[in-house]
């Protein structure tokens, strides 16, 4: 699904990712853990195609190097990023945004676009599962949403867009335990042999609910250790210091 080869990313003189390599197979769930400032969020932005970084290397997605593609084309090809801090867009109602987004992706895939009636029944069905009230769908996108509402909204978008690769950037931050469970259930429901996940997190907590196939420890812009889900539990006990020392 995804193969990152020798990815170097910098902003100005500052190197953020250095010779970064990662392979994610079809249907696999990978978690990347690491301390603040290790480059985790940058990795998610670069994969999604955000401007403003000097990027070098290869990002192979479904056997195509997408490193030059703009963000919208990557999204249309099936990459989804659940934002750590979802952006507020005043005056743009959630319903309208979701429908525009869904149809943009469908159009790019050569699928039939949905009309208002189809869309509403679809979105309500997904929203219900995530405990999102209809009322929230009629509000301006993320404006005045609580932390939990914002994150649920991200998962709602993910379930509507049905991406091939979903990147979750600290989706657990700012969530209480109940919201965490709802969000994790939402993600688990989307797990399939054809869909891969990259989960970025500080804490092992989320991984109690979403069991990863692989856990990577990322320090200073590179992966320093890879293991199975047990590694996350170990990290929870010993912290990142050991790995930081090693470098």
């Amino acid at each position, binding site marked *: 699904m995804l193969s990152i080869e020798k990815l170097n990313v910098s902003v100005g003189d500052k190197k953020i990712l250095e010779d970064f390599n990662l392979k994610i197979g079809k249907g696999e769930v990978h978690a990347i853990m690491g301390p603040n400032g290790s480059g985790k969020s940058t990795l998610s932005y670069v994969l999604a195609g955000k*401007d403003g970084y000097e990027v070098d290397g290869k990002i192979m997605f479904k056997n195509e190097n997408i490193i030059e593609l703009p963000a919208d084309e990557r999204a249309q090809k099936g990459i989804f990023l659940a934002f750590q801090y979802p952006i507020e867009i005043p*005056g743009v109602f959630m319903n309208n945004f979701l429908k525009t*987004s869904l149809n943009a992706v469908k159009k790019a895939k050569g699928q039939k676009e949905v009309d208002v009636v189809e869309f509403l029944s679809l979105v309500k069905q997904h929203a219900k599962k995530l405990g999102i009230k209809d009322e929230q769908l009629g509000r301006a996108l993320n404006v005045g949403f609580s932390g939990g509402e914002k994150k649920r909204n991200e998962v709602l*978008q993910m379930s509507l867009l049905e991406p091939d690769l979903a990147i979750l950037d600290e989706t657990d931050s700012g969530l209480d335990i109940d919201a965490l469970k709802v969000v994790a259930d939402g993600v688990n429901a989307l797990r399939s042999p054809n869909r891969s996940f990259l989960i970025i997190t500080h804490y092992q907590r989320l991984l109690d609910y979403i069991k990863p196939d692989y856990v990577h420890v990322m320090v200073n812009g590179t992966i320093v250790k890879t293991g199975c889900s047990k590694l996350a539990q170990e990290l929870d006990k010993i912290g990142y210091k050991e790995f930081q020392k090693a470098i």
Partner: protein
Amino acid sequence: MSDNLIQEQIKQDYAYGFITDVESVRAPKGLNKEVIQFISKQKKEPQWLLEWRLKAFERLQSMTEPNWQKPQYPKIDYQALYYYSAPKGFKEGPKSLDEIDPEIKKTYEKLGIPLNEQKRLAGVAVDAVFDSVSVATTFKKKLEDIGIIFCSISEAVQKHPDLVKKYLGSVIPLTDHYFATLNSAVFTDGSFVYIPEGVRCPMELSTYFRINASNTGQFERTLIIADKGSYVSYLEGCTAPMRDENQLHAANVELVALDDAEIKYSTVQNWYPGDKEGKGGIYNFVTKRGICKGKNSKISWTQVETGSAITWKYPSCILQGDNSSGEFYSIAITNNYQKADTGTKMIHLGKNTKSRIISKGISAGHADNTYRGLVSIHSKASNAKNYTQCDSLLVGNLCGAHTVPYIDNKNSTSTTEHEATTSKISEEQLFYCKQRGLNQEEAVSLIVNGFCKEVLQQLPMEFAVEAQKLVSISLEGSVG
């Protein structure tokens, strides 16, 4: 988002640039007594109106153009303009739809204004102005049955001289300012609406203006009177053909609301803005003013201004009646080298008068957008209230936004509130939208439409969709 990319992408062509080939009856070039007499004679006007025009013309001789505005423009040679032009065969009043020149029909079809009553959006009556003469008036019969008068102002002069004589110039006096006085001297046609006491106009009244024959300054004159306890919603929409020379448009619109009456006036203005280098385009120097003459009356202006090289107008409300209220909702979009200096004046004279101003200015390219507004509360206007909100949105790094609010308060029991924000479309917002599969233009359009929401919501349904499209079209390619 680099400047280069912005430059590259600011490439939006005007979709409505075409000229209809219809022979015109023109007044001789230039501005003088003879031309005014010609206009008046062509229109078979009564003596009092000719004298009124000549008085305005005389007054004009001692006036100069105002020059306090932000957008500057080359000197206009008033003697080089034609002040009257009518499509051939339209010396009389409106004819039936079947008799309309097929060329004109085609023009309206291109603009998406179906003249056939069957085709039209249910509930909209159109008084279409082609150049200076009314071409068609529809739904007239239906409106007549309940006593509503909706016709061209020329026709009103013939058929309802008392109403015209009583109210023409009562809101915008002959001596008001240069462009308004010029209009009073040479106005050619426009719409007239009278809603009788207690009548609620059952449909949105609308007019589409088009500037056509070359070198014809357009001097529309519109007069709307809402008698006691009546209600009317009036829509005005415009597009103009592509042209190199700048064209002056100096309309006067007067609204009169008597006791307990309400007038809602909505405009979508999409005149030719000039090309990407700022060449050509319309000068839109319009005077729009309403008076809430009676108690509990209300006037609401909503405007979506996306066209013209220069837009310079301040739809205003004189709140004379006690408990009367005025509203101004505005979206002004300027792209490329367009300039706008627009806003409103709310003059509080009566007790408990209220006004509300919501202005959304969007600048892209090299454009300059100014909100200028006056809130004036006179000494007798006890408990007057005003709320003003001015938001500016910048797209790119080369444009400008300015806010110039004047507040003049002479009554200590009154309150005024003013809020203003200036923002840019953020990289984060754009990235978020793109990550969800929207391309650059879709993202900008979505964000800008969201920014304008409060104003767009004020528009009647028939206009809201068109206006949303316009908002998107005017900014296409404005962000790199």
